């Protein structure tokens, strides 16, 4: 369960996010404007903050900068109707940890929120990743399943690494596009699906259990 602050001026969107998160068992506080958000964010500890970029009065970027300068390090997911590269860069520069363009699927929001709030602090330093019988040696660039070497293409390796780092959590298609291909937009193509399918057939060769689960309408998941 996460303690989440949702800052959104549009009542319908706010309710949509609030209800969705509550149903997933998160505890949700809402703020309809920047002033309220700034107050709540600085007096209460949250696991994550979802903030709309366009707010009346104090806009999302200003609120975010103020939150950061007040020393609050809570992960922030910024929502926006603006999809240009410049807008994303600006958002990340202001201290956002992730950026989601409207309209979005709720599963996308939820997956990103989970990834954000539970981002391991020292992930970058790890050299070995393990999930079930799959092992990854990041230094030697080696993958083993049940002790047996699995030969992967660099892109497949990067895909698996991303899934393994988030083992137990759903990783969406767009998250994979961002982190494996560095595509911060949706090219509306099936390259993720075809690569997952390749990776899957290589990992599953000779095994019964499918390592990578497909969560319909959401993304992919590797069990711990």
């Amino acid at each position, binding site marked *: 369960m996460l303690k989440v602050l949702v800052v959104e001026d549009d009542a319908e969107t706010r309710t949509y996010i609030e209800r969705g998160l509550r149903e997933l068992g998160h505890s949700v506080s809402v703020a309809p404007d920047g002033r309220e958000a700034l107050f709540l964010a600085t007096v209460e500890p949250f696991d994550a903050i979802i903030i709309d970029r366009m707010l009346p009065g104090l806009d999302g970027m200003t609120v975010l900068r103020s939150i950061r300068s007040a020393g609050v390090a809570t992960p922030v997911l910024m929502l926006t109707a603006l999809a*240009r*590269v*410049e807008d994303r860069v600006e958002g990340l520069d202001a201290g956002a940890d992730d950026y989601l363009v409207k*309209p979005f*699927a709720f599963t996308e929001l939820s997956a990103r929120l989970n990834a954000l709030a539970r981002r391991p602090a020292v992930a970058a330093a790890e050299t070995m990743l393990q999930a079930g019988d799959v092992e990854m040696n990041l230094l030697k660039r080696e993958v083993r399943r049940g002790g047996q070497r699995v030969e992967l*293409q660099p*892109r497949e390796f990067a895909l698996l690494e991303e899934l393994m780092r988030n083992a137990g959590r759903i990783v969406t298609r767009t998250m994979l596009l961002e982190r494996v*291909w560095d*595509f*911060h*937009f*949706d*090219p*509306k*193509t*099936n*390259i993720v699906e*075809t*690569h997952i*399918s*390749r990776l899957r057939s290589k990992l599953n060769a000779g095994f019964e259990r499918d390592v990578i689960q497909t969560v319909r*309408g959401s993304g992919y998941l590797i069990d711990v």
Partner: protein
Amino acid sequence: MSRLRSSTAFRFAFFFSVAFTLLTVALGGGIYWAIHTELRHDLDQRVVTERSSVLREAAGSSLPAVIADRAAYEHGDMRYALLDRRGRLVAGQPVAGPIPAGWSGVQFAKPSGETDETRTFSARTADGGMLVVGADPEAIEELDAHMIPLFVAAFGVIAAIGIGGAFVLGRALRRRMESIDRTANAIIAGDLAQRVPLSGSGDEFDRLAGTLNLMLERIAALLGNLRQVSGDIAHDLRTPLTRLRQKLELGVAGGGDAASLKEVMTDAIEHSDDMLVLFGAILGISEVEAGGAGVRRDRLDLSALALDMADSYRPSVEDSGHRLASRIEPDVIVEGNRELLAQLCVNVLDNALRHTPPGTEIGISLTTAGDAAELVIEDHGPGIPADERERVFGRFIRLERSRSTPGHGLGLSLVAAIARAHGGDARIEDNRPGVKLMVTLPRVAR
């Protein structure tokens, strides 16, 4: 007339010619004054010299004799008179009025009876009389008689040319401006086909008119595009919206159990996602087209991107039973937007995959030709008829043959928009058989 006075061109020419005329007057006056002064000085000099000469001669004989002698002979324009202490004429020519000492203008009587004003120097003689020597300023008068009308005439001609020129220039400029004004007013009134007429002289007005016409052309093209697109959007969205509505209606009417309702709703979500994708694609194209040169561009290794895209597509290509042959020249650098160029690659590769039967080899190559980078995606599939090759870059264009394949007919128009936003272009050639899609982008040095 009042319109002419309010014309900037007229005012400019008018004030310019007035200034020019005043300058001419000043110059003429200056010359007149200088010559006048010089001639007067000359006249005075002659009077002084003549007087000294008279006095010198008188030293040998008597002054009245010398004067009488001089006055008797016709000495051109010099006049002489010697008066006694009471002002009576002793010798020389008769003078009128009292004579002051020093320089003055004395009236000498002519033989004809008229008087003639002269430039005169008078001084007392030793016996208390007065010696008067004068010179007729005929030369100066003659000069005035010639020069003043000349100056007046020149002034008149210059002023006339200046003001006439101002009128002509003002009218000419106004006429050229009016043709632009008329065109603009016609366009305001709704006739978008109007263009500014050119005079054919190639002057700055023609160039301005040419630029304005190009601008009007562009605006008309954009407007036409907008009209077509809004029509297309309305049409293209009605179909999926109708389907969505039907599904939801059936779901409600069916009164089925939770499971079947959930399926209807999942279906409805997929349908709306499809529409969102369509909207996104339309927005994307408009953004790229509107952004044009304003699209953020960085130095980009196009070779690396093309290689990356080819690698990323290899599984898709092979899974669909196609083959991929890539030939990427290394180190091709462009000023580009990575996301847009990646999208361009995605669209052309998807396009080739969709419209060719399994077993077809799809070639992707990147080469350089002078200052251009050429990205070519080719296949030996069924190809596109020659008269459709230009059309497929339009929006919502789907060829009859591909009605059954998925897509909205926006892929290649985005390709063309992206290429144009990078200062390049996209075109389709016959690959005998098949499609050869060439994207040309300006290249920068390594």
